[in-house]
């Protein structure tokens, strides 16, 4: 008998179906993965299994857990959830109570599972199982790293010895190295406890590495399901094939030869933050960026790689002039600057594409107005010239000028990122800084955007500085890679050399954390 069985499940909001006609079986001991883009209804499916759908949802069809339909009574449902289902969410910071110590939160879960008398013996065991030290129990969530918080969440989910663990994008808020360790931990625990796993992700490679069976969802429908090897090895549905193709990043051929003359030179650049404290109890100042020097040639694509918090974003903010350096300076096209003092005309030669396409446009401003904003830097332009510049930029990214009258909420994530790139191009810059340009996008859109970027580079002779922790993307795009750790650049080289024979400990760790390619 299947542990979870969904028959013809339909979930609708205000008449619009978000999930329609979904049937699937998860056998006891399976590791089942659901793959799908954002908005495909995969999280709703998981919530339906746990009986956690919002009240505004209208549900039809049947959800059976261990052969019995979900109890209608809220108390019985809560009891079943507490004892038999464990859940791990995407963002552990919001799923943990910020005012309670980790140990107390796990003990609360133990009390809810009616195992209070055993709390003293259970707690150390659970912490050990998820790879936390006993000392971590006394800490608050903000004193733990993202990976440690996710481990604490997993410990809480394990308390009641659940038969089913639901993990909803548990690693997409984490950086590559942590992502790999958390995925390994989930695999190990499921094997040891013979637990059934429902793993939800948009990352086809994470699902492939973890799950024995997969289902592919699109627009509320299950388009394909079966054994991982069968589905990903020989996909039947068109959509699965497209997803698979998108997850492979092909090397974007460099069509232009970089010049040797440096466009941007960064010289002994440091950014120092004074930390809180008093007198000589004061903590030593934090050197977010520490004596960094490098050059970017005209037409070159340089990638800056490192774990979260290594100072790569701070460095990018100084280069584009959002922040000023504490020591050292930069030289752009022969003119030195320290950051915010970048003069307007020089500023026009530089632009930045933000990570999150959803917050990089003013929701109250039409796309045309947002895109035209950087043209201020060029002094007064006539209306016609301004319109011509906009048309050129919008057509370069493959969209139409008619779209400029619309507002940001009318665009999808991929279109917004294209428009963000168009905004970056509108002043005809020579260097574009890309801060994680595709990490907020669904896997299926990443390939398109990267292809667009390399085409624009060839057409306009742009130089790129790509900031990322995604080695596959870097390997596909960059001519040269800089590896950064704790504010310093620790290794440098072409992607071929660097990834074939990594020298530094961090580069090796990043390489080891890469998820294996899908068949």
């Amino acid at each position, binding site marked *: 008998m299947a542990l979870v069985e969904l028959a013809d499940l339909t979930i609708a909001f205000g008449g619009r179906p978000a999930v329609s006609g979904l049937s699937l079986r998860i056998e006891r001991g399976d590791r089942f993965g659901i793959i799908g883009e954002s908005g495909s209804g995969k999280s709703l499916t998981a919530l339906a299994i746990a009986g956690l759908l919002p009240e505004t949802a209208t549900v039809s069809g049947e959800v059976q857990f261990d052969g019995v339909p979900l109890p209608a009574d809220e108390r019985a449902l809560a009891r079943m959830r507490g004892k038999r289902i464990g859940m791990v969410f995407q963002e552990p910071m919001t799923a943990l109570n910020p005012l309670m110590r980790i140990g107390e939160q796990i003990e609360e879960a133990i009390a809810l599972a009616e195992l209070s008398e055993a709390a003293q013996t259970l707690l150390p065991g659970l912490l050990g199982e998820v790879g936390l030290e006993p000392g971590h129990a006394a800490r608050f969530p903000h004193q733990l790293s993202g990976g440690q918080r996710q481990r604490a969440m997993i410990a809480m989910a394990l308390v009641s010895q659940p038969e089913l663990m639901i993990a909803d994008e548990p690693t997409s808020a984490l950086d590559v190295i942590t992502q790999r360790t958390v995925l390994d931990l989930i695999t190990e625990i499921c094997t040891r406890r013979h637990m059934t796993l429902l793993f939800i992700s948009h990352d086809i490679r994470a699902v492939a590495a973890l799950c024995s069976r997969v289902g592919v969802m699109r627009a509320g429908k299950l388009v394909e399901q079966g054994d991982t090897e069968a589905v990903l090895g020989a996909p039947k549905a068109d959509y699965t094939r497209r997803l698979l193709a998108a997850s492979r990043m092909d090397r974007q051929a460099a069509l232009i030869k970089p010049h040797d003359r440096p466009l941007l030179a960064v010289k002994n650049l440091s950014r120092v933050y004074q930390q809180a404290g008093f007198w000589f109890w004061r903590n030593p100042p934090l050197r977010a960026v520490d004596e960094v020097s490098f050059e970017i040639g005209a037409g070159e694509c340089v990638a800056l790689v490192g774990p979260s918090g290594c100072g790569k974003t701070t460095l990018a903010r100084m280069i584009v002039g959002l922040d000023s350096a504490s020591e050292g300076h930069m030289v752009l096209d022969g003119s030195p600057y320290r950051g915010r003092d970048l003069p307007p005309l020089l500023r026009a030669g530089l632009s930045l594409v933000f990570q*999150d396409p959803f917050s990089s*446009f*003013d929701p109250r401003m039409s796309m045309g107005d947002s895109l035209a*904003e950087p043209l201020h830097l060029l002094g007064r332009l006539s209306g016609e010239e301004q319109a011509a510049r906009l048309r050129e930029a919008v057509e370069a990214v493959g969209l139409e000028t008619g779209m400029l009258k619309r507002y940001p909420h009318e665009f999808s994530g991929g279109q917004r990122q294209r428009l963000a790139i168009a905004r970056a191009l509108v002043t005809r810059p020579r260097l574009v800084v890309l801060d994680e340009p595709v990490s907020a996008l669904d896997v299926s859109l990443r390939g398109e955007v990267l292809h667009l970027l390399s085409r624009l580079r060839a057409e306009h002779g742009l130089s790129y500085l790509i900031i990322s922790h995604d080695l596959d993307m870097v390997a596909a795009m960059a001519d040269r890679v800089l590896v950064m750790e704790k504010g310093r650049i620790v290794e440098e080289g072409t992607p071929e050399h660097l990834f074939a024979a990594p020298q530094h400990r961090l580069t090796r760790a990043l390489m080891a954390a890469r998820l294996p390619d899908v068949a």
Partner: protein
Amino acid sequence: MTWGAIRQHPSLYIGLIAAAAFALLGLISLWWTPYPIEQIAIARRFHGPMAEHWLGTDHLGRDMLSLVMSGTLTSFVVAALGVLIGVGLGVPMGLAAVAWGGALEWLVLRLSDLTFAFPAIVVAILIAALAGPGETNAIIAIGVFNIPVFARVARGGALAVATQDFVAAARLAGLGNWAIAVRHLLPNIMSLLIVQGTIQLSLGILAEAGLSYIGLGTQPPATSLGLMLRDAQSLFLIHPWLSVVPGLTIVFVVIALNIAGDGLRDAMDPRLRREGLAHGAG
């Protein structure tokens, strides 16, 4: 904000209609009242509600309905001008605090702390001592009291907006602090300000009634709801009706504005809007 949003929030619908009805009643009094409010007829005083005088007459024989209409107008005008002063000075202060930060932010916050320390009554007494009582006195006192309220609301909203990437993008586009505040921060906190404006309007009406009641606001022969209460106060035990009419009017206007304010907040807050779909994302 669309008509659909209004239909989804019946409280907004009811509140706005009731508040608009009172405001309209006041506006009509500019051109027409059943009887002129200065017309004293001692012979007809202390009538209860009757066909000629729907709400009766007061201790000087004036028509109560005319007085209520005119008094409502005074209350609305005084409160609205007070809100206008608060918005006009407070919002730029709050935006400037966010856009420039540093010492200016400190100054704005300390200034609003200082103003908060003086209730509207104390400011009104101060102004009355300097310039004599009157409507202008009440407007300034309520306005001064509103400045820090709007400065704080604007600063709080703008702080949240300022962390978004599009503000950084505007900075990259070479926009100065002031341009960023006007083009990006202000439009994004507009809904917050409208909601706060409605609530301050109702507080302003209460404050005006209070100031007139203690004799620092509107002076006869003009009238306001607070002044009517003050006139009726000594006669409360004999003719309770004279206090009940202006008192209930104040209560209804304030309730209507508060309901409208709550409804506006529900309709405009994007976190509450489309709650069901938000869960489905991802």
